[in-house]
């Protein structure tokens, strides 16, 4: 929140800010360390066997030992994620723009979007596999999982455009394309980026689900297969190593999106502004 506790006397701003920045970097690491320690202690003290819940050390060792296998899977999954994310971002925004053209379009087609959102991928994947090449089917699955938040948030953003600004564009005879590019998209940007931050993690999940439902098995297969296989083969440390990779990938994706969002909004939108701006 902005300045709720602003000191009344001048503060050594640069110094304090530097310290705060350091703390902001350190604190997550401290909390992470604490989390890992709790995990470790929980496993040790309760003597939880590694085939139920392996300790962090074992998971890390497994991660290193199995790195060749796991990294290959990670790359596969990340590719699917990227493709799914791009599809979700473009598809979600494009659909929202389409719906924004007229309420009628929105009212007639939005239900189909909702249907897509709530359809379990596992149920439609076989159909997709019948009619689409496998690669495409995988991306469609990932897309189905991730597109809705982008669509919903973009719609919300487009509906929140300041009406006086919209009036201004009308007065100046802006073409629909101009209104789109110069008014609607920038105005909806904070919302769109919010949707993308949600979609980032969802496309990772989407990639996993898509791999399970429609992906190729065996060699060259992604983390989903590794997780399922390790679990089935009772190689629980490896399963956790794969989950760890997945989590790390999720965090990296989120951080990247948050960073992009910050860079895009930092000069003008409240949500990205510093305290004293």
């Amino acid at each position, binding site marked *: 929140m902005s300045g709720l506790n602003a000191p009344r006397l001048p503060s050594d701003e640069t110094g304090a800010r530097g310290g705060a920045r350091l703390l902001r970097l350190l604190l997550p690491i401290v909390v992470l360390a604490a989390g890992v320690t709790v995990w470790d202690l929980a496993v040790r003290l309760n003597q939880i*066997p*590694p*085939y*139920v819940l392996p300790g962090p050390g074992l998971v890390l060792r497994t991660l290193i030992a199995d790195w060749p296998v796991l990294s290959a899977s990670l790359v596969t999954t990340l590719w699917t994620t990227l493709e799914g994310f791009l599809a979700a971002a473009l598809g979600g925004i494009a659909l929202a723009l389409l719906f924004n053209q007229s309420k009628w379009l929105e009212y007639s087609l939005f239900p189909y979007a909702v249907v897509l959102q709530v359809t379990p991928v*596992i*149920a439609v*994947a*076989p*159909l997709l*596999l*019948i009619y689409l090449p*496998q690669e495409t089917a995988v991306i469609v699955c990932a897309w189905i999982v991730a597109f809705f938040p982008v669509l919903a948030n973009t719609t919300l953003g487009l509906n929140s455009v300041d009406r006086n600004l919209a009036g201004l564009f009308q007065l100046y005879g802006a073409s629909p394309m101009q209104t789109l590019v110069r008014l609607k998209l920038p105005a909806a940007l904070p919302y769109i980026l919010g949707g993308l931050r949600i979609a980032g993690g969802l496309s990772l999940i989407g990639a996993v689900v898509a791999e*399970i*439902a*429609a*992906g*190729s*098995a*065996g*060699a060259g297969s992604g983390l989903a*297969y590794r997780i*399922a*296989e390790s*679990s*089935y*083969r*009772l*190689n*629980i440390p490896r399963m956790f190593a794969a989950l760890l990779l997945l989590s790390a990938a999720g965090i990296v994706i989120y951080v990247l999106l948050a960073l992009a969002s910050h860079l895009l909004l930092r000069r003008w939108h409240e949500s990205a502004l510093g305290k004293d701006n």
Partner: protein
Amino acid sequence: ASEHGAPAKPAAPEKPAVPDKPAAAEKQVMPGKPAKPDKDSLDKVSFGTNWVAEAEHGGFFQAVADGTYKNFGLDVAIVPGGPNVNNRALLIAGKLDFFMSANTLQSFDAVANNVPVVAVAAIFQKDPQVLLAHPESKVAKLTDLKPLTLFVSKEGVASYFQWLKSEYGFSEAKVKPYTFNAQPFLVDQQSAMQGYVTSEPFVIEKQAKFKPTVVLLADYGFDGYSTLIETRRDLTDKKPDLVQRFVDASMIGWYNYLYGDNAAGNAMIKMLNPEMSDDMLAYSVAKMKEFGIVDSGDALRDGIGAMSDARYASFFDKMSRAGAVRRDLDFRKAYTLRFANKGIGLNLRPRN
């Protein structure tokens, strides 16, 4: 088909047979005693299966339904599995006492990962795993499947497919995921999909109106046991009597289910899984008999549930060649012969 192999009247339908050699246990409530053991004195036992209730689990349900377990002093709760339900994890975590593991490879995996579980009996002498193909693809033997697209589940890829790869040179490039949904297979005549000999052929015959070609992997040397009773090692160590009673009662349940009046077992299956139809159940039972899934080989001599070191060694050899398990694995830790091979219930098999 339901009449197929209808047994003569079972020895003691309402009063299950006394085991030939009762596992001389001190506290054991002798079956047949007039005083019915009241609920409190029964040992509570939970048993997780690996799929929704179906005929392939029939013996266990039979033993619950007709009171066999009760007669052995057990109060058994069966926890059905299903797609993605992981009852095995619950066994390992101590939430379940017994688990029905799908195949022998899983037991090897347990050893490989130092998971203290052991197989104590093997219900299926033959793995019912099959590959189904369209009649149009003119598949006659296993290797004819090689050029086809194969729909194999994740578990399948991790297990029998490794054997197909090493033994017969199948390629992973042909594999597409099978999520227990036959549509892609039905549409593509140049494909094959996995299944159990006891159910998928029937489903396809019934719904898609054609008789698929069926290739039973066991016929080609995939000689692992299937549908094993698995439990934690501490249970076999600390309560061997309990384990023995569960194994024995289950075997009797199986004999009764296969050869006796299995109406009670089926009723229970249908209660737990209302979608199960009578003809489906009958088909499965018939196929189990026809292919000797349960009662063949060693089981004929040692009773249902029989296991042998030789079979284990042979299967381990194949799987280690396939690269599915480490060669130096002490696979003998995967099972114990302490509880099986006792010939329990042999007398219930109709002699013909």
